[in-house]
């Protein structure tokens, strides 16, 4: 059991307190698991640089060594770290897989995300614990997805927390509730195409699967539709790109997912209790996503 949520402003020019929305939506979803909590936040994109979010060893010279690794690849700015979470912006035009390798050659590091606009923040514990470890509530952005986890099939640690970045594809992330029972087969197939995986978590494969489809030129709609056939098991998931959010539910509708929208925004969650923390209006009438149904909202 896990809790999912998403928030999107429909107007492409609109940015607002999506970090706060995630905090408010994730807090009541803690009953669906507090092993870990995380968010993927999308701010105003910048074409000239990428933002990195990196998990580092909290003590020692790791931040300095990560800085050296980054500085060797491009101009580094906006560098900061809170405990085990490092954030930096880098002017870089090369391959993101190579950049990820450069950073992860520093021991005790893991790249959470690289994106023009996306930043992934995650840690063990509930929404408040993560806010204390790596503040995200004040983030202003266009959209965001969030996850609270009850681990059932892989480790309870930061690396196996959601959201997962579809490495090395910039700005694509996924949150998932369920089990992908053909995970090993799917992963082997994607690994055979050259894609790499940072964890043994089945949800990471969804992110890479969708990103691979998008890279081949598929639309988000087609990628979502294909996933309902290609993924076995139970799932409700949200995938986010710089353009918007897509959702899908397995053909047996075994995991909950509801959505509601008005002219201004789209709200998605495992349970209505999360929606009501950010939208009091009774005009918003949530509806459950059907069995095997997919939906997407682009800005």
């Amino acid at each position: 059991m896990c809790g999912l949520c998403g928030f999107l402003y429909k107007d492409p020019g609109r940015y607002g307190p999506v970090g706060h929305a995630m905090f408010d939506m994730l807090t009541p979803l803690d009953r669906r698991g507090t092993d870990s909590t995380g968010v993927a936040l999308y701010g105003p994109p910048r074409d000239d640089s990428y933002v990195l979010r990196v998990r580092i060893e909290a003590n020692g010279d790791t931040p300095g060594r990560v800085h050296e690794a980054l500085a060797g690849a491009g101009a580094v700015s906006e560098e900061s770290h809170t405990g085990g979470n490092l954030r930096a912006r880098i002017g870089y035009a090369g391959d993101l897989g190579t950049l990820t390798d450069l950073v992860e050659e520093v021991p005790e590091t893991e790249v959470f995300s690289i994106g023009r606009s996306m930043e992934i923040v995650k840690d063990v514990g509930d929404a408040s614990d993560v806010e204390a470890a790596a503040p995200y509530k004040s983030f202003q952005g266009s959209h965001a997805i969030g996850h609270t986890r009850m681990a059932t099939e892989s480790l309870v640690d930061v690396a196996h927390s959601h959201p997962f970045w579809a490495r090395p594809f910039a700005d694509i992330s996924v949150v998932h509730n369920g089990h992908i029972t053909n995970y090993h087969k799917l992963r082997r197939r994607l690994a055979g195409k050259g894609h790499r995986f940072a964890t043994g978590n089945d949800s990471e494969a969804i992110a890479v699967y969708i990103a691979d489809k998008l890279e081949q030129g598929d639309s988000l709609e087609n990628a979502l539709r294909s996933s309902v056939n290609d993924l076995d098991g139970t799932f409700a998931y949200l995938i986010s790109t710089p353009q918007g959010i897509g959702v899908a539910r397995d053909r047996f509708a075994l995991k909950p997912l509801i959505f509601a929208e008005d002219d201004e925004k789209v709200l998605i969650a495992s349970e209505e209790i999360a929606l009501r923390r950010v939208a009091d209006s009774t005009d918003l009438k949530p509806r459950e996503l059907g069995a095997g149904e997919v939906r997407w909202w682009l800005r």
Partner: protein
Amino acid sequence: MATLISEIDCSQHTTREINQAIKRAAADGVPDVRLTNPAARHCLAVAVMSPTRIVFDGPVGWYCGGMCDGAEIVVNGNCGWSVGENLMSGSIAVHGNGGSSAGATIRGGRVFIEGDTGARTGIAMKGGIVVVGGSVGYMSGFMMQRGTMIVCGDAGDGIGDSMYEGTVYVGGTIHALGADCVESELGGDDRALLESELGANDIDSGGYDWKKLVSGRKLWNFSKHEYDAWRAAL
């Protein structure tokens, strides 16, 4: 004499306190209990065993009204999964959309959802009546054993799958019948029942293309001659 509680602000109490207050009010003979700010919280008004009228002004979460016996519950908003699960008698009316498993395993009473519901609506019903003003999702009426389900809108795949007994009426499109669920002839008694039950919720039964679904009874007893039917069902 105990103070009669007729209004409860859910935002000021834990779920346990709310449910205890409802039961105290019911025991004190309060005929009407109104609850504000439920904010889609789970497990509200469960196991109320008296004919008290309980009104929620706002959405409720999962399992609202579960295991109740005689209460009359009104939700002015949506509800989450499994509204009225295992209802024994009484009624629940939801003026909004519902989640999955609405009216699951009810033994009696009446569950009404004005809008759409999700997958497995009315699963394993053992009596009572479920009325849905909109459409129902995948595998609704699965393993129904007794009772009546009325769906004014469309029915998702697998409607009435492996039902033993009971009746399902669908006014809209049926995407696919479930295993051993068959269409039966709609008679005068059926039309009278639809008119009466839907009329109770101010819905005119005349504007629909009603289909009556019942068990084909081929799965009641195993027969090696019906191997294909069993294989499809399992």
